[in-house]
């Protein structure tokens, strides 16, 4: 009690004042939430996934609510890396929060192109590579489900950047540790997981899929048990820092991930329901540490008792 509790963590060289970031695609480019949230409280904003050129995304309907979750098929709509740097980043730089650029491509070249553009840009503190995309050049195999492709795309990107490189894993795989190891071997600085689970919903009145894109990504509390299991597995099998993502709604959820082995967490869908959820989670983690005599949050990372 009374002691100062250190909540700061270091992920792949990025110093975070606390372990709570907001997840890509759930916080726009930050500015959307400015009327409701003090961005200075959030340790890092992972911006909506960026590509080398703007993307229109998928046709609507793009979202469906599910039991304790939601499906989205936004389809990576984004303004492109250049517009982000020119139009959005200057605004974000005004805040005392780290900016992590989430990015993707349809080919290894596209991934590398994005990285080349941002590598020397001031105000971007790290990169998060979304590998849940199909490789359009090589037969639509997903970069995130085939370890060889994972290794190749991460290695290629690694050559073009000195920025901290986080690789974000897809949960739609048989063995997530194999993909994690491939990313680690290719030079990733950290691993974040999970992205959304692939899912579907059908309207029984029209007999059409509820999403125009047929399938979408499942997020929210419903996926938490799967996410937590994968974080635990990956934390055991690679030496890199892990960022836990998936259904985090409360500080208890965040702590579960950290105890399982995550050095930090990202809050996604929960932002839609309460834009101030990160602040509440940070305070909750602090109280937990206080009540349990923990003076440094890093001490609980991976402290699960098996």
């Amino acid at each position: 009690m009374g002691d100062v509790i250190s909540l700061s963590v270091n992920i792949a060289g990025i110093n975070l004042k606390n372990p709570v970031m907001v997840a890509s695609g759930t916080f726009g480019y930050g500015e959307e939430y400015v009327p409701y949230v003090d961005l200075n409280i959030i340790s890092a904003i992972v911006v909506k996934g960026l590509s080398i050129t703007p993307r229109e995304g998928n046709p609507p309907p793009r979202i469906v609510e599910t039991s304790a979750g939601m499906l989205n098929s936004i389809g990576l709509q984004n303004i492109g890396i250049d517009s982000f740097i020119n139009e959005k980043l200057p605004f974000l730089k005004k805040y005392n929060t780290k900016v992590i650029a989430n990015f993707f491509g349809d080919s290894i070249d596209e991934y590398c192109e994005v990285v080349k553009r941002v590598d020397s840009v001031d105000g971007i503190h790290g990169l998060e590579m979304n590998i849940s995309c199909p490789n359009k050049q090589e037969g639509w195999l997903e970069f995130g489900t085939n370890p060889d492709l994972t290794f190749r795309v991460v290695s290629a990107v690694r050559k073009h950047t000195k920025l901290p490189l986080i690789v974000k894993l897809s949960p739609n795989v048989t063995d997530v540790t194999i993909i994690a190891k491939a990313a680690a071997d290719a030079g990733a600085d950290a691993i974040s997981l999970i992205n959304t689970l692939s899912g579907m919903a059908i309207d029984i009145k029209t007999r059409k899929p509820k999403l125009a894109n047929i399938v979408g990504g499942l997020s929210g509390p419903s996926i938490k048990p799967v996410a937590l299991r994968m974080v635990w597995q990956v934390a055991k099998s690679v030496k890199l820092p892990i960022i836990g993502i998936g259904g985090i709604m409360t500080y208890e959820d965040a702590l579960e991930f950290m105890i399982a082995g995550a050095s930090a967490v990202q809050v996604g869908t929960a932002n839609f329901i309460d834009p101030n959820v990160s602040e509440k989670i940070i305070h909750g983690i602090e109280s937990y540490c206080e009540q349990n005599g923990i003076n440094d949050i890093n001490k609980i990372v991976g402290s699960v008792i098996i």
Partner: protein
Amino acid sequence: MQVVVLENKRVIGSYFKMRLSYDGVLNALPGQFIMMKVNNSYDPLLSRPMSFHRIISPNPSLEKGGRGKFEILYQVVGKGTGIMSGLKEGDKIDILGPLGRGFLIPDWMDRAIIIAGGMGVAPMMALTEEISRHEVKKSKISISVFMGVKTKDDILCREDFERIGAEVYVSTEDGSLGKKGTCVDLLKELMTNTPLFSPPSEGGGCGGAIFACGPQGMLKAIAGIAMDKKILCQVSLDKRMACGTGACLGCVIKVKSQKYACVCKEGPVFDAGEINWEML
């Protein structure tokens, strides 16, 4: 933001009205909406979008300790609205808002045609109240409200509109009251009887404008008529929403520029001309 239920009661059938109070300042405009978390369960998980039905200033004033209030009018159609209908006086609810762009009241308007299809009536009361407070060239704006519903039991707020001084015209699909047909038919009828026009943005004259909310098909028909006759027409759209703030990109529609626009942020009120009606 947390609001407190002051009253929540059935109006008729599956329609309910809820009055809420809040601390501080809200600054809502007609056509704007809130995202309402109906309870603290994860099922349903997402907040529900609800328009401001009435925006009521604090009385006594905020400084004298008054609290702002607003009303929502809603239909029970599923899980979320079902839970809402069970809320009681004193219950606390988390909301986000006011969100989106509301209706713009042009300063040259001397005639407002307000068209509400079904539940589309919800935001139109706040709009009508607001318009009734405006004046153009020192005289009141004439307000006509066209309400289209399935059958006479679905007509809501008729007296309220009339009390504010609006003329109300009703259409029912089954002909049980007013004109048999839809409110598009009411508009067509008006157009054949009365010249209605919107002055060019630079002109000094007065003119009418259309405000519409309701099913997509109805809005499309109204937008077609309005654009054809060059009448200013604002429509309020209804799309499934997750965030309500423009962050998730879930609620998009195609606009004329061929781009996707978020209904929650760039709307829900759009100028009929902005929308790519073919792609809707």
